[in-house]
């Protein structure tokens, strides 16, 4: 296999500097305190810690839990996650009933509850970490939502996922947009939970699918979610993660291109309060030629021990000539005591690409910003809100699901109000 090269953004068609924001490189191990906190150090890619896997593409994948070693927290993909707070998802049987699933909205789609032996199980995903495999072994039945071929859903598909207890549980969902169909699907998580979830997403040839996963759990919820999308030819897929509520939320969305001419946009918005751990690890797998991907994640942090993690892996395989990809992550630290880890990782195995780049920046809203705005008559509270809203709206506006935009704007307002800023 060709040697993977780690490339920096080759062209700066997109400016990555936010002033008061500094570029972060990859030297962001959890033991490396301070670098992220102040966003002050500049790292070259040469400083990156050795990543044990030779390539992201070679990570172990299996439906069997036993194929994965028990976690100790030092694994590359778990090193930022406080395992103790997983409340047993990684080492207890997942026997809880799990949150209730209710699908409403569009009428011209198909909703089924199926058993483990249904032919569609496994049509898009294969676990690539231990918790995901545990969930795969444990789920009893799956919810399958299908947008039939050449159908335009006659409304947004709303999947309410409502938890009522904290027994560790597994959950399985399959969303299939058959060829030339078009739909917006919103996964709406709320209530209490300790949940390991697998979401399989099939985007058929020529289909246009948006999947939005909103995590507005109660404060003490624990949720891991692997959301793997398999994208056909000439298709468009948009994936949006919105993580606001929960004690620990760990999202691992991925997009795998299986046919040429497709486009993926992956957005994320997260707002961590005191003590919250919000993690997102993405993979875009360019396995075929001439596909395009854009990843934009933005997060705000406030309060003691608010912690966010963003790891963005983009893999451009040897076959993926003509790939065009760009990923960014920006974090805004609103108070002291917060911590944001941001690790972009681009692996390129062919030189014949249209473009590849990434940017990552973590900055703080500091006293000088505040002074500037206040010196123009704006009171402190309004000044802080102005900055946070502006920062996060950039993502909210790109979701382009009107009903959701308003709801998310309100949710951000509530976060701001809750943080007393």
């Amino acid at each position: 296999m060709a040697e993977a090269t780690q490339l920096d953004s080759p062209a700066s068609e997109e400016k990555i500097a936010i002033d008061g924001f500094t570029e972060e490189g990859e030297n962001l191990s959890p033991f490396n305190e301070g670098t992220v906190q102040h966003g002050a150090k500049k790292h070259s890619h040469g400083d990156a810690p050795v990543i044990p896997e030779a390539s992201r593409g070679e990570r172990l994948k299996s439906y069997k839990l036993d194929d994965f070693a028990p976690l100790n927290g030092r694994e590359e993909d778990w090193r930022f996650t406080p395992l103790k707070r997983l409340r047993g998802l990684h080492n207890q049987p997942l026997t809880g009933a799990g949150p209730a699933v209710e699908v409403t909205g569009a009428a011209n789609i198909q909703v089924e509850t199926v058993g483990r032996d249904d032919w569609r199980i496994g049509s898009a995903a294969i676990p690539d970490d231990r918790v995901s495999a545990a969930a795969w072994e444990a789920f009893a039945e799956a919810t399958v939502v299908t947008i039939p071929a050449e159908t335009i859903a006659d409304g947004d598909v709303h999947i309410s996922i409502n938890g009522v207890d904290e027994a560790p549980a597994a959950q399985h969902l399959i969303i299939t947009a058959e060829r030339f169909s078009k739909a917006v699907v919103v996964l709406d998580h709320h209530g209490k939970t300790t949940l390991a979830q697998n979401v399989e997403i099939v985007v058929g040839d020529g289909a246009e699918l948006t999947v939005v996963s909103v995590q507005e759990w109660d404060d003490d919820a624990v949720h891991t979610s692997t959301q793997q999308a398999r994208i056909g030819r000439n298709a468009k897929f948009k994936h949006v993660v919105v993580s606001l509520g929960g004690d620990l939320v760990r999202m691992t969305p991925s997009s795998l291109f299986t046919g040429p001419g497709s486009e993926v946009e992956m957005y994320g918005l997260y707002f961590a309060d005191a003590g919250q751990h919000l993690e997102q690890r993405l993979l875009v797998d360019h396995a075929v030629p001439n596909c395009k991907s854009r990843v934009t994640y933005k997060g705000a942090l406030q309060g003691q021990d608010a912690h966010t993690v963003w790891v963005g892996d983009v893999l451009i395989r040897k076959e993926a000539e003509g790939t065009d990809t760009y990923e960014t992550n920006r974090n805004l630290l609103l108070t002291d005591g917060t911590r944001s880890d941001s690790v972009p990782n681009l692996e390129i195995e062919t030189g014949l690409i249209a473009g590849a780049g990434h940017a990552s920046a973590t900055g703080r809203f500091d006293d000088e910003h505040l002074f500037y705005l206040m010196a123009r008559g704006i009171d402190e509270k309004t000044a802080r809100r102005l900055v946070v809203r502006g920062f996060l709206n950039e993502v909210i506006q790109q979701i382009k699901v009107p009903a959701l935009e308003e709801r998310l704007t309100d949710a951000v307002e509530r976060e701001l109000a809750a943080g007393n800023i």
Partner: protein
Amino acid sequence: MSTLEITDLHVSIETEQGARKQILKGVSLTINTGESHAIMGPNGSGKSTLASTIAGHPRYLVDSGSITLDGEDVLDMSVDERARAGLFLAMQYPVEVPGVTMTNFLRTAKTALDGKAPSLRHWTKDVKEAMSQLRIDADFAQRNVNEGFSGGEKKRVEILQLELFKPRFAILDETDSGLDVDALKVVSEGVNREHNKGGMGTVLITHYTRILRYIKPDFVHVFVDGRIAEQGGPELADRLEAEGYDRFLTNSPAPAGSPAGA
């Protein structure tokens, strides 16, 4: 008429080592609306410290003395209250504010200053007009505040705010530095437009007399080592440009309360 009065102001800062360093050592200055004052002086003499203290930057600690605006205690006001009372500081180094577009910022500030939202139609027109007079590209409105602006562009945007916010007292901290000849002219015209309406007192902090050719000061103050060492009319500026500050510096450290020359 309004009066901004600074009396025997002593200001210090806390250095990174935690020591306290005195910077202003007894500054007295009275500015009336309609007047224009120039403050000149060597690097590090405390000019920006005075400006920032008036605006209320938290880094500067007032040890003694007073600042009043028509008799009201300015030192008692928060930063935003000072701005709403009519004080405006065009900063020497305007900061870039992430996530906030100029449009949004200007409207929010105007609303805060006036206590009500400006009528949208007039406001949009005012902003457009002021931007074009200052030769600021229309697309700046959609950019984040000062983000990626050049030094000269930042200064123009400060003056844009001056024109839109219409303060009673404007302190311009080296607004002229970093401007080429054309920009200097454009910016000076902006200040004059506002000043000539008669309702504004202007303080120009500068190292050079070139801006004073466009903005005629009524008074010139020489700042040396945290004090006003000499005051005079516009002719003093020319003398300073010709002679430099040497004669003040050789006299220093002057004992407190005995300004050199006059």
